[in-house]
């Protein structure tokens, strides 16, 4: 199982390198905020923590993690879309 997860990890890094190298400088700012939003994926782990029937201390930490990760996800995607809209309307 560990091997499999490490395998996935490495493969994703290679894919990331390939994908990002192709992005033109014009789009680097939205790319950064967009990929930043994706790193908010840790929200899934936060949800699992809050759901897992842990004790109060663990649950409170899980809740705070949910709020922070959601801000990261939603804020990141919305602000990226706001930027992309500005690029779009000139065409």
């Amino acid at each position, binding site marked *: 199982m560990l091997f499999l997860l490490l395998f996935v990890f490495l493969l994703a890094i290679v894919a990331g390198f390939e994908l990002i190298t192709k992005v033109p*400088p014009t789009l680097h700012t939205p790319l950064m905020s967009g990929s930043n939003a994706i*790193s908010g994926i840790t929200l899934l*782990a936060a949800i699992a923590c809050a*759901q897992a029937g842990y004790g109060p201390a663990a649950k409170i930490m899980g809740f705070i993690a949910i709020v922070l990760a959601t801000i990261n996800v939603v804020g990141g995607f919305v602000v990226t879309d706001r930027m992309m809209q500005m690029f779009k309307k000139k065409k």
Partner: protein
Amino acid sequence: MDLIDLLFLIAAVLFVAGLKGMARVSTARRGNLLSALGMLLAIVATVVHPGFAPGGAPIGLDWTWLLGGIALGAILGVLLALMVKMTAMPEMVALLNGFGGAASLLVALSAFYGDYLPNAADAPAALSGTHLSILGGHVWMIAVVASILVGAVTLTGSVVAMLKLAEKISGTPVLLPGRHLILGGTFLAVMALSIVAGWFWSGQDAAMLLIVAAILSGILGILAVIPIGGADMPVVVSLLNSYSGIAASTAGFVMNNPLLITAGALVGASGIILSQIMCKAMNRSLMNVLVGGFGGAAPAAGGGKSEYVGVKSTSPEEAAMILADASSVIFVPGYGMAVAQAQHVVKELSKTLEKRGAQVRYAIHPVAGRMPGHMNVLLAEADVPYDQLVEMDLINGDFKNTDVVVVIGANDVVNPAAIEDPQSPIAGMPILNAHEARTVLVVKRSLSPGYAGIKNPLFERDNALMCFGDGKAFLEEVLKELKAG
């Protein structure tokens, strides 16, 4: 394969497709929406999937808290995203980054408290497997420690970077004596505490040690960023973006969630590449940036050379006359243009010049603005067509055939010292060859140095005319003259 595995797979594919869409302006918005859709799918799957908590632990479905937390975060996220000014994008990314890092840190602590503590009578060596992970105690513990370390460094490092960018704290590098020793020592202390907590102690004592390790990791993040000058913050933000991805990945190992590992690794790779691109644009190595001390300390090295001689200045009337005669004009915008909110008047000016038959373009240096591509966003906001924005390598050969170059709020990116003075701190940095144009109008408040803190010999050139004043006010005058004449 469970349904949730399938949904996670679809989400991962959407992330990859989304990032791929980011490669072109025409598909970038859809790309972002695809990523968002992937995220939504993953969240819904995680929330509704029954029996998600592995190990058969009873699911404490606190719907109110769960959905309440998501709703609260979503509202705050939307408000932040809609209210932030485009000039403050780097701060925004840094802040969101910090939140992501904090979440990964909390996930690791929460999993340790909730999953490991109640179940482990002994150190993890005695555990064949924990509830949340089937990786085995040792490996699981490594993942927990890594999440805590990277998550905490991302949190505090991002906050310091944000404060430096917003100029809430000074951008001058803070160079503590023996800072490399302090940094290394703190890192070793974190490692030592983690090893004791994970392998030798158990119960509440181990938890206390981990909390101390988390706090020290936070201090480590601060120590790592304060010696780095304000000018280098974009590289730091990009690198921290990478860290937040890595933190998500390690949290994925903690929670045995392959989607976290995949998405986190994608972001981790993207952040590192962007950091490298930025460093290359400044002709510096990533190591050189991270060691810090650049910017702010430089003027001392420059000695008494910061005096300017033979600088010529001009009035809006004269500038308008020069522009009226030009058949080719290139604007070189910098962050100062955005601060002065001059991008709209620049756009008006360029439209007027185009109407008079001049060719108008914008030269974009890779590190113009406060993060790569920042200038493009700021000009897009002002409705400048993006096909008028030309990258450095494509436009550099054209400067010598250009009548007038208008430099607005940019300084270091047009500093010829980078090519002519091997002693200059920025020697070797690729610049826009604005000095080759027939006339260079430099719109600037004063002769004060730019972000890198060094003198710009361009201002002393025969073909350079300084336009002192507030960028917006000055250009409005020029525009008025031009329209009247």
